[in-house]
Structure formats: structure tokens, C-alpha cells
């Protein structure tokens, strides 16, 4: 204990910050922002001997005996397990289904791995499984293989779920951020920030009441409706952790284009705005689980928007901005007053602030 309060070693002392060389994982490494990217680059990829092309996106497109398959995996560690509008079961199915959909593929088969904590009620496991099954039926995907492990009490949050999935990418569909060019129109499929606010409302020490429910939903059908207009969509992303800001930044960097967002055009529901005002968060950085952002060639934008609005998961779809040749790699918001600001990649987890 005396070690803990010893004075810092002033001889080896240097400037206070550069924390990039953190010796241990911190929560921010899982936030989907800059820290996550650094962790993968610096600690994971070297061991794997580098990444295959496209391997770092939500889902990889691979060729196998002439077929183009989208392949994706995702792990789910949400707390609480059940939240307004969904549960870890819904997330586990829809998360992977949506990752495949962002490659243009309709999910065909899923695997499901459960990691259970010693002591968790069997009834809870049953409820998670029921939610998984129901979500799979809604998404039109079959769970065909699985695995279960148990860890000691205190080594897990009750239930962790991993799902992997595969689906066929239709001919002529090639969704990659590298295809984005200046002039592309940026569309979002509906109101942002809903899932993140629903989860936060249940978090210990933040707890607030709201009618907002998670938007967790499978996006395969919406994507099919969009591809029916034209197979020439440039890129799709589901803005989960890190929110719209993280997805737009990823696309801006990978495409070498700038992105301009008209802030007033971004659909933010009243309770999301209220929760963000109260906690000092920016809706652009709050997670979604049933929304997508699309970069579409200008000539197809109106038709794609109409197709999105005709689908029940895209009823509130909107044009929010465009890709530009200026400020490559950077996302810039035009504010309601006519000013501009840079929308940076989030660092790590979003925290309520007081100032």
C-alpha cells in the first residue's frame, strides 16, 4: 500500500501524456474509435502477419469456388443483457446480419457461441436464446452451429455471445469505401443515437427514464431494396460503436475524400437530443444498431432515398451531406448557424462530461 502513495520518480519524469504505449488494455480500446484501431494495428495484426485486403472492415468478401461470400464475426458484451427495445440476443443476430448486409449480402447462416458466467440463472440463458431465435427468424437467417463455455463467477457479465455469419454477395455488387468519389451523396436510414441512449438510460450511475427504445433491427431487407434501385451503391456502413462520426471518418480516410455533413439534416429524435444535452454528449458519436449510412452516386440518390423511405426501416431516411474533394480524410459539419466544425474520430468510450 505504501507503494501506491509513493511520490512519483521525478528523475525519470517526462511530459505527462503520451499514453499510446499503455501497457494494459483500457475500456477505450473497445470503443470503436482511434484507440481500437491502434490496438488492432499495434498488438494484433503484427502477430497475424498483416491483414488480408478488406479484412479490417465489418465483413470480408471472399471468393470460394466461384462464389463471392461475405463473412463476418462479432462478439457481444452488452450490459444490461436486456434493455428497452431489445437484448443481447437481438444484438448478436442483428449485429452480424447487418455486418454482412453492409457488404451487400443477405445473411444465410450464423454460428453462435455462448460464454456463460458461473451462477447466471438458467432462465436468463433461456431468455437470451429465445431472443436469439426470434431475431434469427425475423432476419430470415438460420443458426446452424454453436458452442457453449462456462467461466468462473466474476469472470464475465452473465452472458457473452459471439456470432459469425456468411451470405452470398450478389453479382455486380461491390461496396467499399475506396469507391467513394467527390459528389457522392450521403444518406442515413433514419434517426440516430437511439440505441446508445436506450442503453445509457439503464446504466448504473446514469439511470434516467426515457421512452426511447433500441433501434436494433436486421438491415438485410432494406439493403436489398436499395440494391434493387441500382447495384452501383458505393459503400454502406452500420454506425454502431462510435456512431455516425466513426463511420464517416472511416469512409473519409479510406476513400481519400472529404465528407461534409449538414448538421440540421441529420435526424436526431427529441429524447436523444435531450439525453445528449444532459450528459454533454454529441449524437453523432452515439451508437446505433438498426441504421445505415450510404454513399451513393449523385444520379441515383433520389431513387435510392425513395426506396429507403418506402421500406419500414428507412421511413425517416434523409440526405445528410456529400463527399467532396476538399479536406481529404476529414469530416466537416456545417452547423445550423452556418459555421463549420471538424467531426473527429472519437477517441474511446463516450463519457458524460460536466463542462
Amino acid at each position, binding site marked *: 500500500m505504501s507503494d501506491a502513495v509513493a511520490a512519483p520518480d521525478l528523475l525519470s519524469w517526462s511530459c505527462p501524456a503520451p499514453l499510446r504505449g499503455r501497457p494494459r488494455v483500457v475500456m477505450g480500446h473497445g470503443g470503436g474509435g482511434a484507440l481500437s484501431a491502434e490496438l488492432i494495428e499495434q498488438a494484433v495484426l503484427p502477430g497475424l502477419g498483416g491483414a488480408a485486403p478488406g479484412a479490417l472492415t465489418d465483413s470480408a468478401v471472399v471468393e470460394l469456388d466461384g462464389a463471392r461470400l461475405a463473412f463476418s464475426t462479432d462478439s457481444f458484451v452488452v450490459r444490461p443483457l436486456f434493455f428497452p427495445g431489445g437484448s443481447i440476443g437481438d444484438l448478436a443476430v442483428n449485429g452480424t446480419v447487418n455486418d454482412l448486409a453492409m457488404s451487400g449480402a443477405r445473411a444465410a447462416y450464423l454460428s453462435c457461441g455462448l460464454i456463460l458466467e458461473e451462477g447466471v440463472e438458467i432462465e436468463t440463458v433461456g431468455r437470451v436464446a429465445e431472443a436469439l431465435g426470434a431475431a434469427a427468424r425475423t432476419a430470415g437467417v438460420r443458426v446452424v452451429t454453436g458452442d457453449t463455455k462456462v467461466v468462473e463467477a466474476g469472470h464475465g457479465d452473465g452472458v457473452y455471445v459471439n456470432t459469425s455469419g456468411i451470405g452470398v454477395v450478389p453479382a455486380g455488387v461491390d461496396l467499399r469505401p475506396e469507391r467513394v468519389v467527390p459528389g457522392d451523396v450521403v444518406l442515413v436510414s433514419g434517426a440516430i443515437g437511439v440505441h446508445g441512449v436506450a442503453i445509457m438510460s439503464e446504466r448504473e450511475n446514469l439511470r434516467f427514464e426515457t421512452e426511447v427504445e433500441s433501434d436494433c433491427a436486421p438491415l438485410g431487407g432494406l439493403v436489398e431494396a436499395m440494391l434493387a434501385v441500382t447495384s452501383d451503391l458505393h459503400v454502406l456502413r452500420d454506425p454502431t460503436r462510435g456512431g455516425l462520426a466513426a463511420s464517416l471518418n472511416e469512409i473519409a480516410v479510406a476513400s481519400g475524400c472529404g465528407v461534409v455533413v449538414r448538421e440540421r439534416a441529420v435526424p436526431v429524435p427529441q429524447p436523444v437530443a435531450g439525453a445528449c444535452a*444532459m450528459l454533454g454528449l454529441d449524437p453523432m458519436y452515439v451508437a446505433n444498431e438498426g441504421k445505415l449510412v450510404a454513399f451513393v452516386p449523385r444520379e441515383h440518390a433520389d431513387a435510392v432515398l425513395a426506396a429507403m423511405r418506402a421500406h419500414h426501416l428507412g421511413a425517416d431516411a434523409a440526405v445528410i451531406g456529400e463527399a467532396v474533394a476538399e479536406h481529404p480524410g476529414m469530416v466537416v459539419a456545417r452547423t*445550423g448557424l452556418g459555421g463549420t466544425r471538424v467531426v473527429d474520430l472519437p477517441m474511446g468510450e463516450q463519457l458524460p462530461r460536466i463542462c
Partner: protein
Amino acid sequence: MCLAVPGRVLGVEERDGTRMATVDFGGVVKEVCLEYLPDLRVGEYAIVHVGFALQRLDEESARRTLELFENLGMLQEEFGDPWEQAARFGDEEPAREAGR
């Protein structure tokens, strides 16, 4: 410093000897401590910071401030047509140039 937002009081109660309120922030309802504004009533607005109501929001004053802004151009006729200038701040393409 000091992220504080206006919220509307929905209900007031005593808990553990502490005066608390439920306060609505645009559809989000949160428990707020009223110890520093004990006479705040249901329906009133307060400025809330880290779970504490710190000052009553004077709705009449807010209205007067907005009215003052509305009338600014009118009082400044010698500096040009205020309506024309206002039009440059339409919703769709706010006048970025206006500041330069």
C-alpha cells in the same frame, strides 16, 4: 465549466431527508436534487448541473430576451434593411459569408 441545462419539474418529493424532483429534459426524465431551490414548484424550469437544480429559469426574462433579439434590426435601421439581412440566414443555406 459547467454544463447545465434547463429542465421542467414534473414532481417533487422528500427522500432520506433530501428534497428531490423528477425533471424532464426534452423527453428524458432524471432525478434532481432540489436542496438549493427548495421552493421550486411543479411546472417550473430550473437550470440543472450534475443532478442539482442551481437556479430557477425565469421564463418571462427568456421571453423578453428573445423579443429584444427580434427587435434588434428594427432599432438599428440606420445600418441597413434588417429583413434583407435576416433573409440571408435562411434555414437551408445559412449565410457563412455573412460573418466575413
